[in-house]
């Protein structure tokens, strides 16, 4: 399964926005993601891609743009 497409789909679902046009925008600064959204993202990644990321592995600065999230997820699958 294509990681990029899945991540973008999850993000679109979570934020209510299509983020594919702003792959390097900071999702936390723009208010699209928050702690709650981060946890939902982790759970979605777990159920859809089978990767498990413990909460303490979630370093915000490494997960704050769509591109960074995709890179991170690709390194984990």
């Amino acid at each position, binding site marked *: 399964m294509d990681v990029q497409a899945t991540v973008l789909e999850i993000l679109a679902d979570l934020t209510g926005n299509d983020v594919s046009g702003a792959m390097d925008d900071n999702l936390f600064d723009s208010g699209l993601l928050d702690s709650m959204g981060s*946890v939902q993202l982790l759970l979605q990644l777990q159920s859809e891609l089978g990767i498990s990321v413990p*909460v*303490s*592995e*979630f370093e915000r600065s490494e997960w704050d743009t769509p591109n960074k999230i995709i890179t991170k997820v690709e390194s984990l699958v």
Partner: protein
Amino acid sequence: MLSFEPYGNPTYFAILGVALIPLVIGLLYGRRSRLYETIISIFFLVLTFGGPKWTQGVALIVYISYEVLLTWGYAVYRKQKNSGPIFYLMVILAILPLTIVKVTPAVENGQNSLIGFLGISYLTFRAVQTMMETRDGTLKNFQIMTFLQFMLFFPTISSGPIDRYRRFEHDYRSVPDRDTYLGMIQKGVRYIFVGFLYKFILAYYFGQILLPRLLQMGMQARGGFLDLSWPVLGYMYVYSAYLFFDFAGYSLFAVGTSYLMGIATPMNFKQPWRSPNIKDFWNRWHITLSFWFRDFIYMRLVFWFMKHRVFKNPRTTANVTYIINMLVMGFWHGVTWYYITYGLFHGCALVINDAWLRYKKKHRESVPHNRFTQWFAIFLTANLVCFSFLIFSGFLNQLWFTN
């Protein structure tokens, strides 16, 4: 024997300055002397917890041995097994001393617990965080000596900022290159001097000069609706200013001193009075505490609730967790009605804030957004925060429940 409040007076800074010189020279030449760092750490711990405060010193030693034993024991155990109940038990044991210290005054008529000492909560945060990361498997290489240095790092021992084990370890095990370190010295010295302005001039003026007067005026003006009066309003703002300058000043000292030691302890304040909403306020006020609560209570609880599908709606999950999170923070400040109300107030404020942000997102066209609304948001947030600090200050308790 000499005894000091950390960063309490000029003599402390003079001693600190002299003690840091060999360390600074060493770092400039790319060396970090563990031995020297340990010696000055112990020296400053003795200055803080020795002499007339020796009972606190004993409490600290017993407490540290206990926490090290637990954390180390858990790290050893975790290499073999990973059982939930054991983990919860260890966390409960780790926060037990702090719980006793916090509950004792409430049940013993304001008497302080014998096992308490300055900074016990901050040490508990560090120990619990280390345990949680060990459980997650994020922290694999637990080193007892590094952990001790992390716990007893004297610049931040009494009131934070609350660093994280892995971040601290990274700095502690390396030596910054000369350019980076020169930058750190520059920043560190600036932080300490801004700290002087905040703590010894502004906090002093607000806290020692203005506040007692307003307190007296407010007490004399009792009798009206809820005993409120203009001096009470004045007290609210002056107390908030005092609280900010006092704590931000202290934090600047702690961060500045860490920088001089080549450790980039995270900042605790980031222009909190510019926050356009309460959620943002908690990203800017006492940052290392609120992030600790975010990462180790809020996110974990949300994760647990969602995984076990406790609530149908994610919004309910978020809201319930906000309230729990801030209530815990309230209780942590102390078991009094005003600290708990303060926590509840912020929990509710976060729930309302979130609902408003959702509404705004949905009705982007109809909600105006301009310079005026921006200023209004900042003004409203600042006032809500000041009101919460009035609750926090305990002044209302004095106003309503004393003669």
